[in-house]
């Protein structure tokens, strides 16, 4: 597959040559095999697909996807009731990407993403009740109600948010990867972004530095084919995001974002490489958003047809995985339903908890603006305090 076939330039070797341009070898670009994509997803037997992962882990992946799905359905419900405000971007349909990707990490690794982040936050260890309380804007929220849907954070779980500026999280993630290298830790930084963020300059500036300095950064592009109402092919002159890595002599891979095990397999390889000093990897996860861009955007209509959405829904990552686990007798239909009842209950309780949690009080307005407030001179100029 691409990742293995794509070779990187060895900086040391390159720098040691002092003869100038004409002596610098051109690194290999991605293979030209028109079959690249099928090649990217090897033809594995059902058993092989599970990569010998423990039954528990395989079941946990199912559980996590179900929880993500039910939690967000509850979120949509609460939003409709006006319990949640502002922008709210659901992840329904894309669960396999973040959950498969994060399952490939160790507890000490870091994750950062954009605003479509509820499931990433949960997967990193944010309690459903803390996530829901954040959506409700309450003091028990994971950001004390100050961040909301787009800005969840959890320092204790190495979950670094939750960012609203398209592409803005990429340079920040680069900095975390830099810190890992700086302190010579063996952690990995995983950053998620939507495919539309690939066009932002921040993406390119960051990939170059990550590759130049061989930082432990795994960049996962969630290609759900639309940036709001703009289809990727209307926004990029080159369809293949993974190929953009060749501009940075960076290994790249494509993962089937609707198949949690393929997502895990591809990400794990990149994570292992990063952890062992092999530098960054660009992963393009091909996925699809079953819901509107945000709560105010209809599921279909202007920029995609009902038929298209219906057809894509046949690839529901949860159904696909459930069938596999059933075939492998790892999770029966009954067990699945049990699981489902459980996560529904958790989402339910999360909403009840959020409902009861108090709103942050007025003094909170001037808290967390500065870490060091106890300074000489005036910090606030609104004449209110």
């Amino acid at each position, binding site marked *: 597959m691409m990742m293995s076939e794509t070779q990187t330039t060895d900086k040391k070797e390159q720098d040691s040559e002092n003869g100038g341009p004409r002596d610098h070898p051109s690194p290999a670009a991605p293979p030209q095999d028109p079959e690249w994509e099928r090649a990217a997803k090897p033809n594995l037997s059902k058993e092989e697909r599970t990569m010998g992962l423990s039954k528990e882990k395989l079941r946990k992946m199912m559980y996590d996807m179900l929880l993500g799905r039910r939690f967000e359905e509850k979120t949509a419900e609460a939003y409709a009731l006006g319990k949640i405000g*502002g922008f709210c971007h659901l992840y329904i349909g894309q669960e396999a990407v973040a959950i498969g990707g994060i399952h490939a990490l160790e507890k000490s690794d870091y994750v950062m993403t954009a605003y479509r982040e509820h499931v990433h936050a949960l997967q990193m260890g944010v309690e459903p009740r803390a996530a829901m309380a954040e959506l409700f804007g309450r003091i028990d929220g994971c950001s004390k109600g100050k961040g909301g849907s787009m*800005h969840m954070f959890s320092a204790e779980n190495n979950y670094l948010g939750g960012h609203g500026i398209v592409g803005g999280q990429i340079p920040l993630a680069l900095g975390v990867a830099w810190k890992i290298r700086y302190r010579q830790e063996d952690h990995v930084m995983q950053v998620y972004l939507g495919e539309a963020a690939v*066009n932002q300059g921040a993406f390119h500036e960051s990939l170059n530095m990550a590759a130049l300095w061989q930082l432990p950064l795994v960049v996962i592009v969630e290609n759900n084919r639309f*940036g*709001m109402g703009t289809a990727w092919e209307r926004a990029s002159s080159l369809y293949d995001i993974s190929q953009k890595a060749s501009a940075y002599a960076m290994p790249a891979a494509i993962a089937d974002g609707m198949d949690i095990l393929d997502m895990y397999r591809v990400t794990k390889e990149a994570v292992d490489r990063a952890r062992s000093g092999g530098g960054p990897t660009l992963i393009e996860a091909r996925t699809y958003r079953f819901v509107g861009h945000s709560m105010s955007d209809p599921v279909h209509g202007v920029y995609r047809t009902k038929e298209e959405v219906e057809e894509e829904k046949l690839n529901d990552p949860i159904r696909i995985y459930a069938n596999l686990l059933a075939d492998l007798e790892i999770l029966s239909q009954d067990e699945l339903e049990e699981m489902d009842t459980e996560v529904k209950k958790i989402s339910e309780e999360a909403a009840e908890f959020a409902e009861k949690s108090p709103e942050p009080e*007025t003094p909170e307005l001037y808290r967390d603006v500065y870490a060091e407030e106890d300074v000489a001179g005036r910090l606030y*100029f609104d004449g209110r305090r």
Partner: protein
Amino acid sequence: MAVITYREALNQALAEEMERDPDVFLMGEEVGVYNGAYKVSKGLLDKFGDMRVVDTPITELGFSGLGVGAAMVGLRPVIEFMTFNFSFLAVDQVFNAAAKLLSMSGGQFKVPVTFRGPTGAALQLSAQHSQALEAMYVHFPGIKVVVPGTPADAKGLLKAAIRDDDPVCVFEGEMLYNLKGEVPEANDFVIPLGKAEVKREGGDVSIITHGKMIHVALQAAATLEKDGVDAEVVDLRSLRPLDVDAILATVVKTNRVVLLEEGWPYGGITATIAALIQEEAFDHLDAPILRVTQADVPMPYAKGLEKTAKPSAEHVVEKVNRVLYR
């Protein structure tokens, strides 16, 4: 005059100017197929085609520079920022290019580009999506800035901005798009830049503001009226050029001033206007000029906190009472 929304007024302004001048085109994220994130450009793609209503990749720096470059060679681009919050990525092209090209080229290259989009806080969009940034733009010579607060002003000022030969930034209000009001239909209806408007006559105190905040000011004035206080509400409409005569006139008339803006206080619009009034009308002031702005903090998500952070009619009334020493 027809009663239409602020959104429709902007849409009309765009359509009319595009009809009038083939060099005018609209470019930005989601302006075409999606009809605009806030539907301001509804129907324009169908009417004018995809060379004149252009969906861009999410690359604020790139397409803003494109607009400036196209303006250098004679086009009149209207660049939409989905919101000005995202324009931080583009300001190099606005402040280092658009604002300076005419000067650096010794007058050879005009830059008749218009940048437009919503400014300020809507509802619970939290810190990164709730910033009123006109104060940052107005700081840079070479740029002109307008901030319409009503449908009529939206239409008249956007048309004026598009026709102006300098870079003009039009700050709209997300919360204003649905606001209805009377708007002249005349094709040549244009509101010249630099003309403030007294939105409410009054003799006891002057409330000077702009954009979305004029409605907060009028609300405060209504409350004060019940209390026997007759407040004048001056809508600046244009921040650069600034109608200093109108500002001084109301100060001379009431001798008491409260300044109101949606954004932050340090370096805010109200700071400059306070400095200007005390310098140019010192002896007409019977009380210090007081300012009302948003809380000097990043906007929090929580409903209650956000409400408290925003400037309100109560804040204005309180400051008015203080300048009236009551």
